[in-house]
């Protein structure tokens, strides 16, 4: 991987910080204090824990989006896919709560993957069969997921006493251990890294991955080359959704031990996945690194909110600027090459 691949994201972040500083001054705070607080928050004490925790979801959605990109597809629906993945996994966990953990856990993980995969398959299928633009469909699927799960958590699956839209508590046998604090690091980070390795292997070492990439580069030639293009597109979207289905596994099984409507349905990490895939150049290693950078910002901003009162939504703002800086910087640099 050439040097440029590492420099671009860093420069983009630097630019974003610079522009962000203007806005911080505008609301009457000190940029230096703010950024110091962000970095401290990401690492100091319990901060590490949340950084790793966020990193997990970012890696997962980043991988999902990147897989789609490799096939020329824009999966903007990672939010919806993680929602149905998480919800279905929790449902299975509650349904079979008697089953011992060593059997149930794999089943539950598989349920998340299956549900997310199904949610991704639908736009993939529509695209492959009818050429329907997956951007709009995946976005719509996000809102359908919100509606569906919102309903489930307010009526049939709601925890019996109380008014909060949330599910029952998941059996303790499935509670994943946590380190470093309230929302700390948990084993799902290992799952995320394992997924990254698997995605790498899939894309560059298997026939399926070869075909996915071929279709992404040139569907016409792929057809000539005997690849079943519609099937590959549907498969790629389904795989993308399947991966995304795991993105909130840690929230549900390691942190809250239940599905909480406000938390699950407020997930925004699907968009962050786009950022991560972009910065990481759709390569698993790049995605891990980009996820780390973004996780630092995310958890740092959350901590900074308590410390010096910069709202955590500043993170979204930074993210937007990072994307623009990155994209423009890349084009400018690309023009200078040769």
């Amino acid at each position: 991987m050439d040097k440029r691949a590492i420099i671009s994201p860093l420069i983009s972040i630097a630019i974003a910080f610079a522009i962000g500083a203007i806005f911080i001054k505008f609301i009457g705070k000190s940029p230096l204090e703010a950024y110091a607080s962000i970095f401290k928050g990401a690492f100091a004490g319990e901060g590490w824990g949340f950084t790793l925790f966020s990193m997990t979801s970012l890696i997962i959605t980043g991988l999902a989006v990147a897989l789609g990109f490799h096939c020329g597809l824009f999966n903007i629906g990672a939010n919806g896919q993680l929602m149905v993945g998480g919800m279905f996994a929790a449902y299975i966990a509650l349904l079979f709560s008697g089953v011992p953990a060593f059997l149930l856990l794999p089943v539950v993980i598989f349920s998340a993957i299956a549900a997310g995969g199904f949610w991704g398959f639908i736009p993939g299928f529509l695209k492959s069969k009818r050429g329907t633009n997956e951007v709009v469909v995946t976005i719509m699927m996000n809102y359908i997921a919100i509606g569906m799960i919102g309903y489930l958590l307010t009526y049939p699956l709601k925890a019996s006493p109380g008014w909060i839209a949330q599910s029952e508590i998941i059996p303790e046998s499935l509670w994943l251990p946590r380190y470093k604090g309230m929302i700390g690091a948990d084993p799902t980070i290992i799952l995320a890294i394992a997924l990254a390795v698997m995605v790498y292997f899939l894309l560059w070492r298997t026939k399926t991955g070869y075909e996915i990439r071929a279709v992404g580069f040139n569907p016409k030639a792929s057809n000539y080359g005997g690849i079943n293009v519609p099937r590959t597109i549907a498969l790629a979207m389904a795989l993308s959704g399947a991966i995304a289905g795991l993105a909130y596994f840690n929230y549900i099984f390691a942190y809250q031990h239940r599905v909480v409507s406000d938390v699950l349905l407020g997930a925004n990490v699907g968009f962050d996945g786009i950022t991560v895939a972009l910065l990481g150049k759709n390569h698993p290693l790049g995605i891990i690194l980009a996820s780390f950078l973004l996780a630092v910002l995310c958890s740092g901003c959350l901590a900074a909110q308590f410390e010096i009162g910069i709202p955590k939504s500043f993170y979204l703002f930074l993210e937007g600027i990072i994307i623009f800086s990155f994209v423009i910087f890349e084009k400018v640099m690309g023009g200078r090459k040769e």
Partner: protein
Amino acid sequence: MIGVIIAFVGSGIRRSTPLIFASLGGVYSERSGVVNIGLEGMMLVGAFVSVVAGNVFGLVPGILLGALSGTLLALLHAVATVTFKANQIVSGVAINLLGMGLTEFIPEAMFGKTNIESLCSAPTISGFTPLVFVAMALVVLSHLILFKTVFGLRLRSVGENPKSADTLGISVERMRYIGVMISGALAGLGGAYMSIEQSACFTKNMVAGRGFIALAAMIFGGWTPFGALGACLLFGFADSLQTIIQTFGVAIPPPIIQLLPYLLTIVILASAVKRVRPPEADGKPYER
């Protein structure tokens, strides 16, 4: 009974209005060849800025500044996609992130909360505020502009075949900038309508996906102003079905009703795709 129907129609039209603005915006942008999924973010900033500016300067300046804020955000999209030829979807996503971030972060940091009440009140004529009429007028005006004027012809040529337009002396870049900025202004107006005239306040994330529904309406409407109007009315009325259903006490839970417009969109897109086609060069950056 008549009263219910009138209320239903009125409510439907009011709910379509933000969609109409944004959808029209989408038409201008895509007709010039630039996909704009950042309508959502542009509506949000329009909603926010118009309330704040309205409280300080008054109703009309507030609305105009709301439109301007949308235009500025759109300018960023244009710079990224037209001048730097960045991927239009990615840029749109970034616009949405910016919009969401800005409209949450600034109010919370400056005012300590994320809802801002609007101190302006707009006059109503038979239950409709002025922007509703503006929206309808804009639909007719847009049809005229796009299909009967020289400007419209050139704008569309740039979205169909930029190479041809270029060889005939039309500036592809300029036309696309104009198309995108108009879409920002209109989306901003849509947001302004929502915050000032519809709910008299701004709350975080109040646009709630309408920017995306507007996109779907644009596609369903065949990228034409009247088509978009029809589709937006359809969605608006579907939305207002909620009230009717509650009035009649039918027990469909609110979250399910809320997801109907999105489901409807998918169904329509999946079936209508064979009939309508986007502008030929939609989504592709142009390089000499």
